[in-house]
């Protein structure tokens, strides 16, 4: 065991040393610095300091992490394959080193490099935002908006899902009983259509109507600052229509606070600060009610989309949130490094690179397809040959499996959350660690180590 640890450390140190001495690290560092300092020159925002800060944060974080991801994948593809092709591996393979030690040592070395570069990204981005706050061109209101909307962390609560089963059952039964449906339509399809209809109806607040959303507060949740409701509302006439209404909030199921009148045009995200006292630990729920007071003009307010309405409870500080987000990114990079390493145990360097990038792209694309099943598959009823059908089915199954595997971590969206001021929870970090940092690299590593132990290193 002691020897294995020493070998692990030794292989990891060699990986780090090779990256440093072959100037790979310097190249990557240069690229990241170009992004970190060049992107702010390219981004413009919409003309407000807040937008500039937000875009600076999200773009620099995203682009630099993306570049780092590419670098990690490429480095890991080279880590074993290039040594086999350069024949250095022959001298290593005739030493008493097991395949898994080699694989894991390389992985640890790459992760150490990635961790250092990620930390650098975090520090530079945070410093840039801090510098932006000192920009003499900004006025106090700009600074306040950056502090209050970007340099904050809020816990994001979705409203309690409503049980629509009874309504759904009733409507489906009515349709089926009416017997006016064409043959060949499955009840499942009818149910899906009706469900969408019911949900769309519930997203709408007609003139004179009031809609209440209930948010369950997590145990022990306390607002570290003024809580607010974030929502997107459009009128039934589209973006140009104007809707006037009133918000009310309450600690219990009934929203009882004094009315807060609003009048909106367009569809942009809006924030409504919740009056103090409307949130508390009374019975662990907060309710928000919107009354549409557009009766004279008959415009319906529509709260559409998955993030149409959220309750945000400020908690924690920006720095630790950024650190948690970067940890999640690091674990994602761990999976990428594992993918590249295992590919490089299977194939030559160019083939491993192609295959690893291909699989990574497939996962990225299948994530979208998995999230939107309607858009992923071919049209129903499309005439395909049996072979094509099997191929399409296999492709869909693979994409679905990859998407499903990636979804639990992908949905965390750590950089998006940091840029939007949403808290990356410890549980998210734990999920990322368990899946992306341990489980997937573990599986890939087992395959890579198995292959490495059986590969004819001397044949290259």
């Amino acid at each position, binding site marked *: 065991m002691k020897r294995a640890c020493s070998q692990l450390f030794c292989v990891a140190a060699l990986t780090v040393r090779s990256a440093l001495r072959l100037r790979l690290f310097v190249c990557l560092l240069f690229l990241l610095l170009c992004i970190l300092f060049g992107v702010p*020159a*390219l981004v413009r925002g*919409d003309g407000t300091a807040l*937008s500039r800060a937000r875009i600076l944060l999200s*773009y620099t974080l995203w682009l630099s992490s993306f570049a780092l991801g590419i670098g990690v994948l490429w480095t890991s593809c080279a880590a074993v394959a290039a040594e086999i092709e350069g024949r250095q591996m022959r001298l290593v393979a005739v030493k008493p080193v097991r395949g898994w030690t080699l694989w894991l040592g390389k992985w640890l070395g790459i992760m150490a490099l990635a961790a250092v570069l990620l930390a650098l990204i975090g520090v530079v981005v945070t410093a840039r935002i801090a510098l932006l706050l000192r920009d003499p061109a900004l006025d106090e209101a700009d600074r306040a908006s950056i502090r209050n909307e970007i340099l904050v962390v809020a816990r994001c609560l979705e409203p309690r899902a409503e049980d629509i089963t009874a309504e759904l059952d009733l409507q489906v039964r009515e349709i089926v009983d009416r017997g006016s449906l064409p043959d060949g339509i499955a009840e499942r399809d009818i149910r899906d259509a009706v469900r969408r209809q019911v949900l769309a109806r519930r997203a709408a607040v007609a003139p004179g109507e009031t809609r209440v959303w209930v948010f369950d507060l997590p145990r022990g949740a306390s607002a570290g600052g003024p809580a607010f409701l974030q929502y997107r509302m459009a009128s039934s006439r589209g*973006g*140009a229509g104007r809707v006037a209404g009133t918000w009310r909030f309450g600690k219990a199921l009934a929203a009882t606070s004094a009315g807060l009148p609003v009048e909106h*045009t*367009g569809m*942009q995200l809006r924030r409504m600060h919740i009056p103090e006292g409307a949130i508390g630990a009374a019975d662990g729920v907060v309710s928000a009610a919107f009354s549409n007071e557009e009766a004279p003009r008959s415009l319906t307010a529509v709260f559409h989309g998955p993030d149409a309405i959220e309750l945000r409870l400020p908690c924690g500080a920006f720095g630790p949130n950024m650190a948690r987000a970067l940890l999640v990114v690091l674990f994602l990079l761990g999976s990428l490094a594992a993918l590249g390493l295992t590919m490089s145990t299977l194939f030559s360097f160019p083939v491993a690179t192609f295959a690893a990038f291909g699989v990574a792209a497939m996962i990225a694309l299948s994530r979208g397809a998995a999230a939107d099943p309607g858009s992923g598959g071919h049209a129903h009823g499309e005439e395909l040959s049996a072979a094509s059908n099997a191929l399409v089915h296999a492709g869909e199954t693979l994409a679905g499996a990859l998407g499903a595997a990636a979804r639990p971590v992908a949905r965390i969206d750590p950089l998006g959350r940091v840029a939007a001021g949403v808290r990356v929870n410890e549980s998210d970090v734990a999920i990322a660690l368990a899946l992306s940092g341990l489980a997937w690299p573990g599986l890939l590593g087992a395959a890579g180590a198995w292959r490495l132990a059986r590969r004819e290193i001397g044949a290259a």
Partner: protein
Amino acid sequence: MRRDARSSMLLAGAAIVAFAAAGLLRRAPHGGEAPTGMHESSPAAAFVTVVLGGFRGLIADALWLRASHLQDEGRYFELATLSGWIAELDPHNAEAWTFNAWNMAYNVSAMMTDPEDRWRWVANGIDLLRDRAPRTGPAQAAVLAELAWLYQNKIGDVIDPAHAHYKRQIAREGAALFPGGRATPELMTAAWRERAAARLGLDARRVETLAEACGPLDWRVAETYAVYWAALAAAVARDPLVALRAERIVYQSMALSVYKGQWDEDAPEQTRPSHRPRLDLFPFAQAAFARTIERHPADAGVREAHRGFLAGVVFLADAFGDPAVARAAFDELARRYPSPLTEAGLERYLASEEARAATHPLVQVSILKLTQGWNRP
């Protein structure tokens, strides 16, 4: 091993050169016109364009998708950046510039409640066309014509609920550079020239030329900028359709300047901005119409616009106490577009309700305001 490394580096270098070459080839898609203007686009954009080479189309598509997705979701804060990138990835495609500018100025601005927010997005559209698009190359004329149209239609017209705010912004920007709204020769010091170029993208030489061709325009109103950019577009246009569009904007904006080309400084900040007619610009507007009619003799639309303009000026000049201009406009109307109404003479024409009702709404509004004592000259 060392030779391998050198070969790899050579191959990588060759690949970069090939991508760059692909990029350069792609930059001159319209008849091989030399892309001489890239230096006038942002250096970062030029760098990205050259380095990305053949991948630009792919990246531009991805950015279009993202921009469209964000817009659908109502997340606008990235749109100005994305629009700029999309256009800069295909800098000689006029559509990329004009669509993105139009989208920001017309669609995104309409999603905002606050006039200041709306103005920001209109300004983003202007900024994209005026400051970021290349000033030479095949896209230039169409881009400039679109910019002129944005000034004339989005800001100068009353189609937007926040148009008054836009007009005040233009007046404020213009007044900061042109005291009293006039471009005088003594104003144009070297420092002023730099400021004019940096703030409003204006070339002092062209401002002077414009004053000679179009008269002493008021640089606090949107129509003046429309004339400036449209005249520039007409001068560089090679496509006759683009040239005609630009010339139309020139004469339309000149006509509008005659109707309401004077910013009313005395109008209270909180009320609707007020403009006054500029009858002294009539000969210049006349000349603009005449130039276009001469170049496009078969275009009935231009002549119809000219007829309407002359009729409007007859009534406006009469109402605002300038009988010489009224007479000149009427004589031209009778000469070029004779009708039973003109054959009856100027007095009978002025008394004709039918002729008055056919004038441009702005003329009628100006006369109405005058009768109510709002914009007495």
